[in-house]
């Protein structure tokens, strides 16, 4: 699709709004519908759309395959690590109440970090799967 001018121009207009919407779904998930999973998929869709229109190599210059593959386990580690913090401070695993000076703020911080972990794993996994499919080429 490298020669399709309309698609290329419209994509450039849409991409920043898609990314902002992904961040909105991520950080506004405490107040409205959404969370790490949905935001991760939308962020991955942004990269995938860019790769579809501008080619796989252009997308890999922005988000390299090595970065994506490092992010896949990183999100799980963040999620599990937040759980371990609750454990080390004398609470149950994945109890966030001791993460800040009182229980409510601890819970808010815990949910924020956990959703960030989900976002990292989901977005990078979707992009990694797309890279794996698109990188093979037709034979």
């Amino acid at each position: 699709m490298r020669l399709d001018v309309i698609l290329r121009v419209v994509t450039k207009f849409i991409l920043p709004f898609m990314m902002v919407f992904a961040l909105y779904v991520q950080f506004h998930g405490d107040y409205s519908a959404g969370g790490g999973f949905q935001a991760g998929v939308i962020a991955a869709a942004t990269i995938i759309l860019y790769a579809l229109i501008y080619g796989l190599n252009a997308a890999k210059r922005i988000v390299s395959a090595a970065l994506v593959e490092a992010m896949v386990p990183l999100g799980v580690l963040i999620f599990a690590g937040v759980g371990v913090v609750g454990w080390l401070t004398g609470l149950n695993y994945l109890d966030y109440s001791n993460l800040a000076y009182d229980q409510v703020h601890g819970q808010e911080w815990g949910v924020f970090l956990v959703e960030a972990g989900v976002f990292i794993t989901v977005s990078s996994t979707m992009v990694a799967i797309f890279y794996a499919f698109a990188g093979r080429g037709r034979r």
Partner: protein
Amino acid sequence: MRNLFAVAVLTGIYSFLMASVMLVLDAPDVALTEASVGAGVGTVLLLGTLYLTKTDEARPIHSVALPLFVAVGTAAILIFGVTGTPPFGAADTPVQLAGPDYINRSLPETGIVNVVSSVLASYRGFDTLGETVVIFTAGIAILMLLKRATPPGAGRKD
């Protein structure tokens, strides 16, 4: 229908319709997930698979009797199971009893307005950790299957 391209597009449309149904059922979180995963990324991955293979389904070698029997049998079991569930919106189901408890506890205990978020990430954080590990596992499984067989230089052309 033998054209798999049309099947992939129809699957996306079906996901989008299901997202509308979720929205009608007052579940915007699920609707957002269904629309983005089912209609968005899922369709792209199906089309990516079609790019690697052929876009027309091959003629089946064996008779369709056994698959048809399995499909009809599974559907019959599922429909039989649905008849045992309480009627839609019934007030005395466990869902309706646990719901107000979470709604009352969420804001004072976690400071999070969206109860779905607080239940997913805090009250049932272990579930969500499991889901994240499932996605992680699926991701590395696909990478192991697809990346190993890539010949050098296959990803060069755009």
